[in-house]
């Protein structure tokens, strides 16, 4: 595949790995990969095995399933239990543990839950089932928000009244800012998410070197992209000149996709969203604008049952510390004992992009 194979050249990977080894500073370096797809690919391509011991990659909050609140998951399950509704969801959500159940369990007891690839598939479900209401679980970051926005706007344009959006859309830069304000966090550089940055541009991270004197590099997702990103960050650390570098030149510009940003703004307003493990972060989420509230599941389909949600999630679960990069997954005492990909207790073990899942799957041999 074009723009994929070129960035997997074994020769170049080896050369870059040597270069990284030479430029590794004496002191240990923590690089936070913000995006869950970086986490996953880092292990999948075995890059953890070729980095020098002093350079540690710590996972950040960029896995939407992992940062969705327990309340959101429980409400999604409550919607699934209503037989008058059809639920459309991205596949990752199915196995996320709610307080009492999962969407997957609800489906096996008869709930109408459809896994979709695109929000437009949810719109098609609504068209095909005019007598029923479809609830789309709109989970994601800046990358997914314009896609959801275009779907809501299409529903309005085409007069489709039986689709509702249950949103958990979040913004990455405010979460990075939140992490940096925690003094326990020791991050020397950020590998910034490539596809979020396609939309928002490199300018969105400018506050990080400016205010916190920590460097950033936007990187793509192939092995050479990730390694170059790490190499660029090491150069910044060595020269003590933090800035926002861009490795993903082929897709990311300084200002991003202005039209996509406009589309997002047309459908959503910014609000203080709640993140699993972090709590409320100012200006970190998107909700449907007042004029589009008739498509908002929260407004239009109020849940009458009382939820018994435990705010902290499962007892002993340390997803919150994992998401801040304060601990590595094996340091959680549930990891691999009671919490596994088959029986996940926290969000980070559910999604293939979660740090715990990636650790479990790719570093089995070390336990």
């Amino acid at each position: 595949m074009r723009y994929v194979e070129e960035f997997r050249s074994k020769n170049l990977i080896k050369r870059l790995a040597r270069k990284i080894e030479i430029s590794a500073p004496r002191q240990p370096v923590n690089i936070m990969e913000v995006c869950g797809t970086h986490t996953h690919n880092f292990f999948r391509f075995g890059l953890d095995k070729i980095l020098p011991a002093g350079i540690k990659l710590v996972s950040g909050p960029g896995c939407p399933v992992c940062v969705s609140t327990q309340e959101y998951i429980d409400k999604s399950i409550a919607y699934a239990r209503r037989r008058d509704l059809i639920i459309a969801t991205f596949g990752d959500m199915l196995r996320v543990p709610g307080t009492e159940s999962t969407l997957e369990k609800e489906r096996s007891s008869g709930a109408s839950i459809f896994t979709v690839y695109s929000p437009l598939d949810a719109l098609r479900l609504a068209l095909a089932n005019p007598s029923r209401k479809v609830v789309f679980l709109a989970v994601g970051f800046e990358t997914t928000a314009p896609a959801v926005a275009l779907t809501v706007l299409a529903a309005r344009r085409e007069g489709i009244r039986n689709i509702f959006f249950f949103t958990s859309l979040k913004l990455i830069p405010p979460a990075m800012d939140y992490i940096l304000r925690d003094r326990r966090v020791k991050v020397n550089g950020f590998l910034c998410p490539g596809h979020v940055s396609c939309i928002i541009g490199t300018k969105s991270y400018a506050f990080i070197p400016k205010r916190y004197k920590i460097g950033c590099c936007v990187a793509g997702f192939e092995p050479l992209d990730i390694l170059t990103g790490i190499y660029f960050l090491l150069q910044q650390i060595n020269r003590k000149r933090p800035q926002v570098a861009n490795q993903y030149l082929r897709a990311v510009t300084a200002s991003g996709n202005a039209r996509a940003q406009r589309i997002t703004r047309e459908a959503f307003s910014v609000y203080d969203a709640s993140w699993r493990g972090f709590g409320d972060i100012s200006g970190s989420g998107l909700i449907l604008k007042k004029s589009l509230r008739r498509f908002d599941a929260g407004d239009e389909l109020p849940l009458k049952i009382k939820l018994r949600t435990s705010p902290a999630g499962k007892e002993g679960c340390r997803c919150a510390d994992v998401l801040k990069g304060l601990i590595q997954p094996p340091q959680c005492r549930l990891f691999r004992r009671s919490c596994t990909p088959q029986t996940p207790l926290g969000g980070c073990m559910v999604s293939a992009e979660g740090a715990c899942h990636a650790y479990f799957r790719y570093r089995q041999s070390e336990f």
Partner: protein
Amino acid sequence: MCLAVPMKIKEIKKGFARAEAGGISRTVNIEMLPDIKKGDYVLVHAGFAIQKVDARRAEETLRMLDEIR
């Protein structure tokens, strides 16, 4: 979840395009990229083309990679 795959635009029709990659063909929404043309490569996320892949800048990256020694 922010996965996106580079696909080649084969045909454009009213806000949508047929795009191909690795032998797979898909209909993708192109409303975020109004200036896209047949033959361009785009990154596709959740059925939407979110950005054009810039061929010149991809070359630049590969050249830069080749120069790291």
